[in-house]
């Protein structure tokens, strides 16, 4: 099943990846080559086989509901592109 150009644009939008018009044909072709490889899966009979999400099939441990971390906001925000008064700045979202 080959992807059309419009589907590639939709996937890029879902992934919030800007796509260069000029790159679209090449990107579409490469993705279709990869999907061609992936589609070999469909020939495998997996009837009755349960999906395996975790190699050891353990469940996630839960920790006690206690505060263990101190506030390090200033330190974490030191690497942000733009902050003010402890808030992350982005372009205006609401007019």
């Amino acid at each position: 099943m080959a992807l059309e150009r419009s589907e590639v644009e939709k996937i890029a939008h879902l992934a919030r990846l800007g796509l260069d018009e000029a790159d679209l044909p090449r990107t579409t072709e490469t993705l279709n080559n990869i999907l061609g490889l992936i589609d070999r899966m469909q020939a495998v009979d997996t009837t009755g086989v349960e999906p395996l999400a975790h190699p050891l099939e353990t469940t996630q441990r839960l920790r006690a509901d206690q505060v263990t971390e101190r506030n390090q906001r200033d330190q974490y925000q030191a690497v942000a592109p733009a902050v003010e008064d402890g808030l992350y700045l982005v372009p205006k979202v609401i007019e």
Partner: protein
Amino acid sequence: MHRLTLAQIARGLADKAFSAEELTRALLARIAEHDGTLNSFITVTEERALEQARAADARRAAGEQGALLGAPIAHKDLFCTKGVLTTCGSKILHNFVSPYDATVVEKLTAAGAVSLGKLNMDEFAMGSANESSHYGPVKNPWDLSRVPGGSSGGSAAAIAARLLPAATGTDTGGSIRQPAALTGLTGLKPTYGRVSRWGMVAYASSLDQAGPMARSAEDCALLLQAMAGLDPKDSTSVDQPVDDYLAALNQPLAGLRIGLPKEYFGEGLDARIADKVLAVVEVLKTLGATVKDISLPNTRHAIPSYYVIAPAEASSNLSRFDGVRFGYRCENPVDLTDLYKRSRAEGFGDEVKRRIMVGTYALSAGYYDAYYLKAQRIRRLIKNDFVEAFGEVDLILGPTTPNLAWKLGEKNADPVSAYLEDIYTITANLAGIPGLSMPAGFIDGLPVGVQLLAPYFQESRLLNVAHQYQQVTDWHKQAPESF
């Protein structure tokens, strides 16, 4: 001094033959001399390394001992290092100075290891050639026109060129074992959950594992001993006692049952590599091992399954790089969507974008069952193959890679051809079992690797077999001519 292994360094430091500071200075000088050619480091932390070395010397002078106290290493640049640039080989993290240490970094630092810096890698660990790094390709010390493998290519090249005795790596589909094979090193991917993933920049969370890379199995044992163990900060790390890896090295191999999977010796394998691998088997037989032909029938389905699961998890993990909280932000965004889209388009390289898009597609409405769940069902078949095989044998042996190190640029035009190189390594990640690659000889001056696979949590068995092999062979002691 640069030819010493970690084990020899530990003895030299204990005997006061040299200090950690002298050793660190010698290696920093070697990095300055050679890394312009290799490009194995993204960041060299000279001042910090000398401080750590002096601190290690002081601890030793105060009576403290420890195999890694004063041992020089470096970290793959996807381990977060507090106060040090952590790029993951990507432009999108070009300015990310981590506010915290990864657990692996913390543990090795506590053991007294001296970190010389951060090593080059494929961007977000996506690649098998170390050519997708934003910081340029890494050269293979055995032949500078060839790739060192990836994604831990900087770790591999630096150790092979004797700039370092050992380093950390990570392995999602072979990223420790394949570069180890292509550069003549020993590298171990532990059981999923054996080593904490906390502070490792995530690629595919159900497959990623950190492990040691070095020039001998003994050195890998020394590093793993300090790296392994339960971490409350990583809910997938496993609460199971850590073996004494050094003590296990000297167990005799008498009675060891080795399985040779027919699927690992079939079409696509360079026949000369097959010969080298079978020669290893002959040596292990003289040490008391017995050999049996086995089958892992679902092996050929591993690549399609992996190239759904890994990109799907990556598309989710990499959504955090949005230009808002850290990392690269595009110039003059007109609105929030533009900020996201352009920061990501400009910040990620081609291979990362491809995998994000494949993963996004596989997880999108209407395709989840056909792709992601299907891949997970195949994943169980692959695990079942191993469980069955380990009912009959103690260890599985085969080639690490189907081919020798290829020329820089050779596989760039066709990503799928590079994906196929992962055939023998990705099954261990899908099943979660441990795997080790060790040197098995040379073809046309290029190293060949043999891979050993063991049941869950039997890292000690892998290190034991590799160490015993390395007691009667010297492939692992060979150095590239120019280094």
